[in-house]
């Protein structure tokens, strides 16, 4: 087949090649770093110098500007892992399990930070750092799921076999995401119901929504940047493992 008659590869097939994926996405890293840094500077300026006290929470509303983005990412990252797990099991896309593995530690940290900032907000607002209510308990379960998945990745030598097993566990764990989301509606929880993402619009003024949304995008861009970098590293790590195996076989022969 000549070059002229060869079928053209679409972007989906092209990024299925780990080397091509790295070449295509590497130029995105620095622009992403700059956008993330600018968003954090603007977000922190609004959070501390250009937003009012809440009429009920007072200044503790400023904790929301780091708590809500981390809570959002704790679930969003798991969503990314779930889509990657489907990509691994259904399409056997080579980059899907790389994405799944790279996202797990990031999701674990965002979940831990959501719990940490939530407890620091809870003490002055509810009078307690922790309560075993639906939202907090299901988020703690999510943290344990992340840690379990990280441990599973480390337990396997064969990363391709690990990917299929972990993809199944990831899909089973995904049942916890709607439980976290709807826990405040299903049970009488101490945690308040949704106040930003609602069918009838957010229940807060623009002066508080602005820093919240800027920080929301800052943390989301941070995740995208770190996820890309971690995926590049994972591609290299697999190449290291492949080379080490080939060299060991060569030494034995």
């Amino acid at each position, binding site marked *: 087949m000549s070059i002229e008659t060869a079928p053209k590869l679409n972007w989906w097939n092209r990024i299925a090649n780990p080397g091509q994926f790295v070449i295509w996405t590497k130029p995105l890293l620095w622009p992403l770093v700059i956008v993330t840094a600018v968003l954090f500077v603007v977000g922190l300026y609004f959070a501390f110098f250009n937003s009012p006290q809440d009429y009920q929470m007072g200044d503790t509303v400023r904790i929301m500007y780091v708590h809500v983005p981390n809570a959002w990412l704790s679930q969003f990252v798991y969503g990314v892992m779930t889509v990657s797990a489907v990509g691994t099991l259904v399409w056997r896309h080579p980059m899907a399990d790389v994405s799944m593995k790279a996202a797990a530690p990031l999701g674990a940290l965002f979940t831990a930070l959501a719990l940490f*900032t939530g407890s620091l907000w809870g003490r002055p607002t509810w009078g307690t750092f922790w309560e075993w209510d639906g939202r907090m308990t299901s988020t703690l379960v999510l943290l344990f799921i992340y840690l379990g998945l990280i441990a599973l990745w480390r337990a396997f030598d064969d990363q391709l076999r690990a990917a299929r097993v972990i993809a199944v566990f990831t899909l089973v764990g995904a049942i916890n995401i709607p439980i976290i989301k709807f826990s405040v509606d299903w049970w009488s929880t101490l945690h308040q119901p949704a106040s930003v993402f609602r069918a009838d619009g957010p229940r807060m003024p623009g002066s508080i929504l602005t820093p919240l949304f800027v920080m929301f995008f800052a943390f989301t861009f941070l995740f995208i940047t770190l996820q890309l970098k971690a995926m590049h590293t994972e591609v290299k790590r697999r190449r290291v493992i492949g*080379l080490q195996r080939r060299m060991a076989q060569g030494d034995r022969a």
Partner: protein
Amino acid sequence: MIDLGPHAVFIVWAYIGVAIGVAGLIGWTLYDARTTAGKLAALEARRAA
């Protein structure tokens, strides 16, 4: 710096905790990238030799 009111300690520690967590995550990601790239370069050099 603005006055953070009677609960300033909770606000300040929330931001310090997040800053430490995010800095740690960035540092770990870069360290992992650097050590893995170093290993790959060393192996490829050994293979080429």
